[in-house]
């Protein structure tokens, strides 16, 4: 019973921490943040399973976390209102070439970050951008004004 409770607490704690960390942190990590994430994984494992070295204990922890994930996914699918609480919503950073600097501040993004992302998808001038959207997964999508084309960070990897 304890292991289910501990896995539940850790799931909620991680959910809160990742919401607080912000969308951009999920998409881009510095080497230091990557190390922190690795260390967190180790600490969380100890917190969830403690001294339990059994296959059953590990399976219970994984199953509990998976069930919470499925429940969140189902609730988000059924209700937009719930989804707005559980998941991050996309935010617009640029509209018709005008940068929303307040939104950049809220998302802890600098103008250089935005320009960097724009260059990554072949955009040299934000004036040619109809919308730049910070998506829920932390990636930035750009919609150009000159032609109906949508690109995001992922396109550069192809």
């Amino acid at each position, binding site marked *: *019973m304890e*292991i289910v409770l501990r896995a539940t607490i850790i799931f909620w704690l991680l959910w809160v921490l990742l919401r607080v960390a912000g969308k951009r942190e999920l998409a881009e990590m510095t080497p230091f943040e990557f190390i922190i994430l690795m260390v967190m994984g180790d600490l969380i494992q100890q917190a969830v399973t403690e*001294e339990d*070295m*059994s296959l*059953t204990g590990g*399976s*219970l922890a994984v199953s*509990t976390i998976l*069930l919470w994930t499925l429940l969140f996914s189902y609730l988000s699918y059924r209700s937009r209102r719930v989804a707005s609480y559980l998941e991050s919503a996309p935010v617009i950073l640029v509209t018709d070439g005008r940068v929303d600097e307040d939104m950049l501040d809220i998302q802890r993004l600098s103008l250089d970050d935005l320009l960097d992302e724009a260059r990554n998808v072949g955009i040299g001038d934000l004036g040619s951008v109809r919308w730049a959207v910070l998506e829920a997964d932390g990636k930035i999508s750009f919609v150009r004004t000159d032609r109906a084309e949508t690109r995001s960070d992922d396109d550069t990897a192809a």
Partner: protein
Amino acid sequence: MRRVVVILLLAFVAAGILGVFGYRQGTTSVESDRYRLEVSYPQVSRPGLPSNWELRIGRADGQPLPEVIEVVSEASYFDIFDENGLDPDPERTWQEAGELVWQFEPPDGSTGLVVTFDARLQPNIHWSRSGSSTLRIDGRDVATVSYRTRVVP
């Protein structure tokens, strides 16, 4: 198919919440020849979990215990544990023919003795194990209790 898997997961976690996979403590006792012997033991446990084994000896008629008491247990049962401590320390301990013998000398006038074996189930144990403990007084077996620890892998 997905729905079936989700239902199975739910059933598995519910079983975990209800303690089906341990840890559960069991108790067994016997009263024989004016002596009462009781053992509290890990009934269901998992590898690595702290496990408590406790033996209680008393006189049904309220009379004091004899000067020397021997507790004879199956040694193989205790092999599944990593021992943290035995309290009180026996005056003498020895093994003979697969039996683990603890000899205690209770204080004068005491009417009961509680022996606590603090341990942890070894991480590499995945099978259940049975054991028994016998109260031996003046070389005569007075009472015996049997128990079984079910190990959930």
